[in-house]
């Protein structure tokens, strides 16, 4: 019975006008807007990418758009001035572990807060959401003291462990999703005598695969792009992540801008790969819903 419900829900809702394939004014406007947005997003990146191939000399003398000579020196510098390859490995490990572990922990917590009625549930939820309002600057020093006491400074665990406990945003987001799943599904399961654990793992988690994938990717990005965390909790250059490593090119008096741009692009590549990898999951995941 459960499978039939899921099956019926996977058909994509269709705009009823599309049965007749005619190009309407609405289509033209719609496509224009979409193209405009596309241009607005891509042009800044293209421009920066071009600049990253400029020689520092060209950049400083402001030769404008197209570089007089294309050069890979900036990219070379990114990999030779700092141990970028090692940093990328660090980044992938930290961001990956923190995001996957964190989202799973959040999903489990979201389930408890959405579907299990226990005393103090509303209070617990408020406490969770409240943490989103605390400015990180306040937490920085006490957190550091704790990590120092645990001898975790200058190890990747200082950056991973705090996130393995779940994040307020993920819990909130997944809870909203789970709330829209009707309880006929698990009522059927309870009749079959399932425990709360198996209900969670066999019904709910698969149903929120899509939102979870989105969250894992989002969190991966966030951890990957985190600048202050690695800078504060890590000391040695070998432990750094790429985003923190880039700050080495921002000096007090002179920033090497073309190298910074090249480095930014290098940093973007892993997240792009992750997004491409998970793209299919998201698309499929978003189609499944628990509604009739």
């Amino acid at each position, binding site marked *: 019975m459960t499978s039939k419900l899921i099956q019926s829900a996977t058909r994509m809702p269709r705009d009823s006008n599309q049965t007749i394939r005619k190009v309407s004014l609405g289509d033209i406007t719609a496509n224009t807007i979409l193209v405009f947005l596309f241009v607005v997003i891509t042009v800044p990146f293209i421009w920066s990418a071009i600049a990253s191939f400029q020689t520092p000399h060209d950049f400083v003398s402001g030769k404008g758009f197209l570089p007089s000579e294309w050069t890979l020196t900036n990219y070379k510098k990114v990999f030779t001035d700092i141990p970028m390859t090692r940093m990328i490995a660090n980044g992938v490990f930290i961001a990956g572990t923190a995001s996957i572990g964190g989202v799973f922990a959040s999903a489990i917590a979201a389930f408890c807060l959405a579907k299990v009625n226990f005393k103090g549930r509303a209070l617990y939820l408020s406490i969770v959401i409240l943490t989103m309002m605390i400015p990180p600057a306040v937490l920085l020093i006490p957190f550091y003291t704790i990590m120092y006491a645990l001898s975790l400074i200058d190890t990747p665990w200082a950056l991973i462990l705090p996130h393995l406990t779940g994040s307020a945003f993920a819990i909130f987001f997944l809870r909203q999703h789970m709330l829209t799943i009707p309880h006929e599904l698990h009522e059927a399961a309870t009749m079959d005598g399932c425990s709360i654990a198996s209900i969670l793992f066999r019904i709910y988690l698969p149903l929120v695969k899509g939102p979870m994938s989105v969250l894992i990717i989002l969190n991966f990005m966030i951890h990957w792009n985190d600048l202050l965390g690695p800078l504060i909790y890590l000391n*040695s250059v070998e432990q750094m992540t790429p985003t923190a490593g880039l700050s080495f090119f921002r*000096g007090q008096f002179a920033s090497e801008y073309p190298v910074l741009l090249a480095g930014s692009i290098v940093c973007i590549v892993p997240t792009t790969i992750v997004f491409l990898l998970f793209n299919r999951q998201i698309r499929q995941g978003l189609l499944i819903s628990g509604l009739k």
Partner: protein
Amino acid sequence: MKKLKTILKDQSKTRRSFLKSTLAVGAGGAALSLFPGLTARAEAVSGTIRYSNWIGGPGDIEMWKNVIAAFEAVNPGTKIEYEPVGWTEYWTKLNTQFASRSAPDIIGFQMQSRTWGVEGRFEPLSEPFADLLDDIVSSQLKVTQAPIAGGIEQYGLPFRMVGASLFGNISAMKAAGIEYPSEDWSIDDFVAAAKRLTNADQWGTAVTGGPVDLNQASTFGARPTTLDYSTATFNSPEYTEFIKWQHDLIYKHKVAPPPADLSAQKEPFSSGAVAMFPSASWMYPGYREIENFEWDILPDPIGSHEPKTYAGPDNLGITTDSKNKDLAIAFLRFVFTRASQTEISSTGMPVVIDYLLDESRIAKEAASGPSNYGYFVKGAIERGEGYAFAPPFFEILGHIGDAYALIMNEESADIDGILANANSRIQQALDA
């Protein structure tokens, strides 16, 4: 050379060392390598310490790695863990480490020792470095000194200096028929030259509003604060006159652009956008790559007062969190050896007097450019001054920058009002 030596001796009144008189500096080259003091204290040190500093510009990391490698080679069994951090993040990280008493053994800082040292976070260095203090430019030592009961204490030591000059696009000047100015050219000569240099493709000069301003501000008798850093003088008659003069450069004489119209993408001087540009020694590596035109340092134009040269130190200190103070002291002493100072001077100026004045060094730097490097060294030593190195230095810089943004970008700005505002804020910062 001798005259300079005398000036420096006079400046270091509190500690006189008669060793100095036996050093043959005079006309001719310096003939020094290591200091006598260093060889006398060659105890064995071992262990590991952490050293953290910010990154001033490209080349800093390389420089420190070389100095550290040389130290570790001479002292086997030691390890200096170097932790460079980007400039803006450096202070956040230091802050966090200080708060949890886990600061690195040696850290770089600017003028904070006045408060930090007195509060017991920095090791006093007057005693372990007593023999070296005379060899260092005393105006640079002042920044890291703090008054304590019974005198002053050195809570940090400068390891290099940077300073400001007026840079000139010699090719552009030649094209405009302007000869290299004499050392006593006046402010009016400067404005006249700027007028001849301003055309469709370039500006005669530019207005900056930062530490490099000191060279011109001082010639109006203007300072942002009093010398003892107790009172703000940002809207004093002298400073107001200076600001109005700068404002006129933009709107009356039209020889300088409003700062907001200067593109941040290209460096104003090396791109040829500005012909006479107040800038600083930290730009040498960049300027040395200029291929399109000849460039050099111009003398500071003279107004109603003698112009000073902005010269400020970057310092190192030993934190009291350190668990291996002997090694830290040994490394710090190593920084003052000729070999290290040579390495360091690739990114700034050495602070050790003899090396600073070393003729062959000056000639070498002048050969790479600027040719008039000697003028700058002389200015830094004879007329060098810090720029409001009060403890709330960054706050003061912020208020000054804000005032500049409001004044210099509008033709009819309420200059007196804005300056008064900024001055009261600077005073608030000083009082805090």
